[in-house]
Structures are given as structure tokens and as C-alpha cells.
């Protein structure tokens, strides 16, 4: 076993080294079609309301964003470059409360309409100030924005209520697709859920439901010389094994989300240097979200018991062998300086104590005290293998050990979201907080009761005020203190949601796929304009 493991490690390392060395010397080649496998379906095409890779992997290449994470350095949380703006990303003026973007003059939508600042403003009006009844999943990231104006056709100004370090990373979110104002004005805010008209590197060819989305090279793309590919095809393959075999058999070139360690080992063993492996910590975590409007989950003692019953340390040790989860952490991406250490979490937050027997005992006590010693409920989950089903099954086993009986209700992606967003008829649901840009203060807005994508159905003014204070906090020390307070409120006092395990990203891909670099998020670096095929 050791010898085999060593061979795999060597093969992967050689693959990495070979790629790194070759990347320097290689000149991008044009042509070819990139075949991607995507493990989830597309709930809608609208980036402003969606939060799933099932949408962003096939649809992102049709759109541009105002700024983006540097595609050549996507691991950095601070390296942003202009996409639809000119020059470099602006620094905040007037004490960090005014950001002026100069819009490129050479950009056209795929239908031929020239892009102006009015289009970007209309886009951000939809994201930041959506009218009543219009969903915006990232509205909370822009709480500091006071106004958006366009002094002229190619200038866009964001005025903030107060300075905040979260603004630029929030603008760089890959979900902030820029739409044409005329489309929004003429067709309304729901039009983009089923229609596509962007300025991205590829134009829409077709979407065959359940099969694939394809795009072809946009000749008028504003980043000259790109894209290198003639086109791409995003093939829908919900089963992980199908995706794995597609890459192994050469039917697909890459999967952008990530495979578990076992799948990586199988691929490297089978294909050797024909496979290159890129790995990274992942700004993504699954949550256990109780529906506070359903009894007995309106009782914080019951919710806290659910968190206490989960042995995260054992999960980290064993689940990381079969799933794309690994790291124990709180609400903040564990690798970030603002994250709370495991030791501190163990002292202050229910479920993080390493003495799991004591946690179980406390969980049972809380349930008995709440009048539900034999609690039973249904766990709502998403029909995606990795890591949803694995983590769901693990959580059910953990709860069983605390005397809680749980059945699992799995739904495909679209009805899964319909249940979370509209029907709300679930007891406890698996949910996720997967963010693109590592931007902890913005990332933890997911836990705000008023966040558009918090499905726990509750209200809490203390949490809101703590977050408001956090947004305005200038120095790292006060930010840390406020994050601790916020985290304790979410995970312990309210136990409004529970964190499971943070993910670990493993991307094995065909070695002839060049130009793509792994990021700590499966949402980043998906424009595909920097990818080329060395065939």
C-alpha cells in the first residue's frame, strides 16, 4: 500500500511539475473544443439568483463581469483585474467610499448591442437594489452601497455609506454577470433565467436539457486574441462515476468542481502523466439548516443538540478518504487569518469540543429538556453525490448515535432549490456556503437572517447589528472580535445553522488542458478564455 501510495504521489507531483514547467515555455495554441463534465443541472441561467456550479460552469463563459479574480493568479484573495472596465481596478476615493470604474468602449453584447455604463448600472441595480419580489442572492454583500451612478456613457460610480474591505471582492464575484439594460427594460428581471445575451468569450449555441450546453468562440470578444478554444461543451453528468470515467475514457477533458481522493488515485493510476492533478483548500462548506418555522426546530436547544451530535473530528479523519471534505472550522474559511482556531471553537461553540462523548451527553440532555428525547425528522438533501449524499448519510449516522432517528429525502437540484426557496416544507436541510472570492466578511453574510440565500427562516436583530458593525470595522483586531461574536451567535447561541466540514478541492484533468489554474473555489476562473488545448 505504501509503495502504491508513493507511486501515486510521485505521478501526481511529476504531473504538476511537468505542467508548471511546460506552462512557462508553451505558447497557447488556438482551436479545439473543450469538453467539460458538470455534476449538476441548471436551475436557471441567471447568475444573480443562482449559487450553484451547475449553472456557473456551463453558463459563465457567455458572460463578462465588471472585474474578476486574476485568471493567472486565482489563488490570491486580493489579485483582481478589470474585465469590462479599463486599466486597473480602482482604489477607493473619498476615504474609501467612492469607486469609479471606466468602462471599456470596445465591448458588444452577442446580439450586437454596444455595452455602456448604463448596462453595468442596470445590472448592479438588479443585484444591489432588487425590487420587492425579485431575488438577489448576493444583495447582502453590497449592504454598504449607497448609490450607483453613471456620470457619462463610460463611467460608473459606486458610492458607499462607509468604507469596507468587502466591496471590491464582492464586485469580483463571478456570478455578477453583466446584462444589457435593454434586455432588462424590455423583458423584465426574470428574462435572464431562461435567456442568454452576454459579452463573454463564447456565444450560446444550445442547451439540451439533461444533456449539454454548448458555446462557440465569440469573434468580437473584448480581450483580444482570446478565447483560444473554438468552443466548449458542458456535458451534464450527475453521477460522479460517469464524470470520472468520461475523463478516463477521453470523452471529457476536465471537471471543474472536484473529485474525492479515491477518484484522483484511480485516474492517476490508470493514466499516469496523461493526467495532471491540481489541489487546493476550498472556500466551501455544507451546512445543516433547520427550518425554524417547523417545530421543534424553533427551539435553540434542539438545534444545538443537532450540532453537538456531529463528530466533526472523526468526520475529518475518515470522510476525507471518500469525499471532498476535510477541514474542521467555523463560519470563516479556515485558512484565512480571520478564522477562529479549533481550540477557541472548542471552548465557545457547541459541537467543537474534542470530547465527543460529552457532546453526545449534552445533546441528549438538551433534547430531553426540550421535550424531544426521541426526536425524529427528515433530512432534506440534494441529489449530488459529492459531497451532499456522503455528508447527509454521515450526519444521519451521527444523529442516530445520539438517539435521533432521521430519514433522508433527496431531490434533484431544481426541486431541491424550489423546496428551499419557495415551498419551505422541510425539517432540516443540507445547504451550502460556497463562495467564490475568499472574502470572509462577505462570505459569512450567508448566515444573516435577511440574506437572500439563508433558508433557516428566522429573524435576529443582534446578528444583523453585529454584522453591520463588522462591515464598518477598520482594523483586523476589531474585525476578529466581531467575527467571534457573530460566529458564536450563529453556531452556538442561536444554533441557527451548523457547519459540517470544509471542502478540499482536487482537480485531475487531461494534461493537454493548459492555461487553467485551480482556485480555492469551483466558481472562480470559469470564463474559459485562458484555456487552450495542447493536442
Amino acid at each position: 500500500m505504501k509503495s502504491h501510495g508513493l507511486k501515486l504521489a510521485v505521478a501526481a507531483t511529476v504531473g504538476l511539475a511537468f505542467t508548471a514547467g511546460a506552462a512557462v515555455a508553451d505558447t497557447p495554441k488556438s482551436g479545439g473544443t473543450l469538453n467539460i463534465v458538470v455534476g449538476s443541472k441548471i436551475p436557471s441561467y441567471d447568475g444573480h439568483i443562482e449559487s450553484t456550479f451547475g449553472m456557473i460552469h456551463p453558463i459563465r463563459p457567455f458572460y463578462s463581469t465588471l472585474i474578476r479574480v486574476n485568471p493567472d493568479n486565482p489563488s490570491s484573495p486580493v489579485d483582481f483585474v478589470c474585465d469590462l472596465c479599463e486599466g486597473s481596478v480602482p482604489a477607493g476615493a473619498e476615504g474609501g467610499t467612492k469607486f469609479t470604474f471606466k468602462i471599456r468602449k470596445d465591448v458588444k453584447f452577442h446580439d450586437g448591442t454596444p455595452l455602456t455604463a448604463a448596462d453595468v448600472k442596470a445590472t448592479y441595480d438588479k443585484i444591489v437594489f432588487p425590487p420587492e419580489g425579485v431575488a438577489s442572492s448576493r444583495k447582502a454583500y453590497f449592504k454598504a452601497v449607497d448609490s450607483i451612478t453613471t456620470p457619462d456613457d463610460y463611467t460608473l460610480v459606486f458610492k458607499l455609506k462607509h468604507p469596507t474591505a468587502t466591496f471590491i471582492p464582492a464586485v469580483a464575484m463571478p456570478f455578477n454577470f453583466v446584462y444589457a439594460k435593454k434586455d432588462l427594460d424590455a423583458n423584465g428581471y426574470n428574462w435572464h433565467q431562461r435567456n442568454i445575451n452576454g459579452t463573454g468569450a463564447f456565444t450560446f449555441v444550445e442547451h439540451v436539457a439533461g444533456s449539454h450546453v454548448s458555446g462557440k468562440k465569440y469573434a468580437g470578444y473584448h480581450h483580444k486574441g482570446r478565447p483560444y478554444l473554438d468552443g466548449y461543451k458542458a456535458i451534464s453528468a450527475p453521477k460522479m462515476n460517469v464524470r470520472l470515467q468520461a475523463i478516463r475514457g477521453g470523452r471529457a477533458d476536465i471537471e471543474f468542481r472536484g473529485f474525492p481522493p479515491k477518484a484522483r488515485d484511480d485516474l492517476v493510476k490508470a493514466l499516469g502523466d496523461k493526467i495532471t492533478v491540481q489541489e487546493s483548500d476550498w472556500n466551501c462548506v455544507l451546512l445543516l439548516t433547520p427550518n425554524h418555522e417547523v417545530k421543534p426546530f424553533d427551539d435553540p436547544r434542539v438545534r444545538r443538540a443537532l450540532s453537538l451530535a456531529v463528530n466533526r473530528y472523526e468526520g475529518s479523519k475518515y470522510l476525507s478518504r471518500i469525499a471532498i471534505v476535510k477541514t474542521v472550522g467555523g463560519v470563516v474559511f479556515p485558512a484565512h487569518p480571520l478564522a477562529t482556531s479549533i481550540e477557541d471553537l472548542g471552548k465557545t461553540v457547541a459541537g467543537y469540543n474534542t470530547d465527543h462523548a460529552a457532546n453526545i451527553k449534552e445533546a441528549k440532555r438538551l433534547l430531553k429538556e426540550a421535550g424531544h428525547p426521541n426526536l425524529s425528522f427528515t433530512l432534506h438533501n440534494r441529489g449530488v453525490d459529492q459531497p451532499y449524499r456522503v455528508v447527509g448519510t454521515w450526519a444521519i449516522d451521527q444523529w442516530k448515535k445520539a438517539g435521533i432517528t432521521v430519514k433522508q429525502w433527496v431531490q434533484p437540484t431544481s426541486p431541491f432549490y424550489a423546496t428551499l426557496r419557495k415551498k419551505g416544507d422541510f425539517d432540516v436541510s443540507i445547504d451550502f456556503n460556497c463562495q467564490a472570492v475568499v472574502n470572509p466578511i462577505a462570505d459569512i453574510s450567508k448566515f444573516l437572517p435577511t440574506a437572500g440565500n439563508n433558508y433557516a427562516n428566522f429573524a435576529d436583530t443582534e446578528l444583523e447589528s453585529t454584522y453591520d458593525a463588522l462591515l464598518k470595522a477598520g482594523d483586523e483586531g476589531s474585525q476578529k472580535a466581531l467575527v467571534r461574536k457573530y460566529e458564536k451567535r450563529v453556531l452556538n447561541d442561536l444554533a441557527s445553522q451548523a457547519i459540517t466540514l470544509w471542502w478540499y478541492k482536487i482537480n485531475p484533468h487531461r494534461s493537454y488542458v493548459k492555461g487553467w489554474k485551480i482556485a480555492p473555489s469551483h466558481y472562480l476562473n470559469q470564463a474559459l478564455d485562458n484555456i487552450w488545448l495542447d493536442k
Partner: protein
Amino acid sequence: MTTAEPFIENNKIPDGKPLSVRFGRMVRAQPLGAAGAFVVLLMIFAAIFAEYITPYDPENSSYEFMLVGPSADFLMGTDQFGRDIFSRVIFGARTALMVGFICAIIGSSIGLVIGVGSAYFGGRIDLYVQRVIDIFMAFPLIIMALAIISIFGNGTDKVIIAITIPFIPRCARVVRSSALAVREMPYVDAARSIGYSHIRIIMRHIAPNVMAPFLIMLTAFLGEAILLEASLSFLGLGVQEPTPAWGLMLQGGTEYAESAPWVAIWPGLAITIAVFGFNLFGDAVRDILDPRLRANS
């Protein structure tokens, strides 16, 4: 009464012989059917006494024993969650049989009622009922089941509905064809002329005489239901974790087909043996109950 004695003579099963002798003759006459019956009985035994047979709780994970190969401690090895596969296969028989029997009995019983009713009343009722049946039968079983699952959602109860509904028209069509012949028999005419009610004629004179095709369909449905349940669970649309179900286990095992093949092999084998057993048993039942086959043999 006039047909009773030749029936016994033709089959050469004289009264009064000890049960063991009769059983031995039956096994010799239908060896494959006997093998099928053995599998069915074994499954039923496993399903009923699962708690006593299995060494571990099928839903309990022991993570330190993840993906352990077959051994004295774990006869069939463990799966990716460290659960004993032998225990899950045994408990899986319970899920398979529960779904199989419920779907087969309810589906064929409703089919019996519809088929007999349609044949007996005839005319427009028969015309309309048969056209509806045509519509249902236009879809392959799995497609129909998938469509129903997409409407009702997944889970054990929904799977039972999804499998039962496609069985109804299939049984109704077969039963109707037999009932059409029975309807024309002189004793049915006699019953009508005496003034017996429709219910009495159907229950006393027609239904008992279509029992042979009904039972054949029933046994055939058992194997089909098990296979369908496994297929739906394999596709992630049927029974959900952590419930032990063969299709679900097979699906989970595909990820480890190379490094831990036992995770998929055992549930796959269980499905194969169960369906094979039910099919052999069903064929034997058909051979015994179908007068034409009986005459040929």
C-alpha cells in the same frame, strides 16, 4: 365435476401419498421451479429473521473499518461508511421483498378487478378501459415508473406507487383476455338467466376461473418489482440512504469498483439471484397452472 378426475389422472398426483413423496415428485417434475422456490423461501426467511441472522446493525457506521475486504469479521466486507455489507444485503432482502410483494399484490389485484370488470361488462366500458390501458402500456415499465417518481418524488412509499401503477394495466389486459372466454361459458349464461347480480357472477363464476393467469402475473411481477426497485434506487430515485437496499448499495459501490469491488458485487449478486429465483418460480407456477402447458408436458 366431470373434469376433476381426469385432471388428477393426467397429473399423476394420487391422493393419500405422504407429503415428502409428493414434494419429491414435484421437485423432480419442476427442478428449476423448486430452485426458484428455494430462493424465494430463503429471501423470505432472511427478510423475516434479519435481526437474528445479521452480526451488525446495517445502518451503523464504523469508520475505522471503511472498505475492508471480506473476512471472518465481515463476511462480505464493508462499504465506504464502514457498514457491514452482509448485514445490509440481508436487510436489503426485506426492502426488496416488501416493495416486491406490495407492488405485485396491489398491482395485480387492481388489475384483476379492472380486467374482469372490463371483460364482463363489455361494450363501451370495455372500449374505454382498454384504450386507457393502451395508453399506459405504450410506455416501458421503467419509463412509466420514472415519470411517476418525477411527479410524486422519491422514497420507499413513492417507489411502491411508481412500480404498482404500471403493473395494473398489464395484469388487467391478461386477465381480461381470459375473462372474455369465461364470460361466454354456459354456466355464466345460466347464472345470468337465474338473475344473479353482477357482483355475484363476477365473484363466484368469473374471477375464480381467471386465477391461473392472475397468479402467473402475480409471480412474474414479484421479480420485476424487485428489479425495478433496484433500478430506481440505483438511479438515486428510489430508496434513500441509510436504508439498506440492493440498488442503492450497488450505486454506492460503483465508485469503488476497482479498489473495493465487493461493495458492488454482493448487492449485484443478490439482485441477480433474487430476480432469477422469482422468475424460475413464476415459470413453474405458470407451467402448473396453464392447462395447455400442462397438457404438453
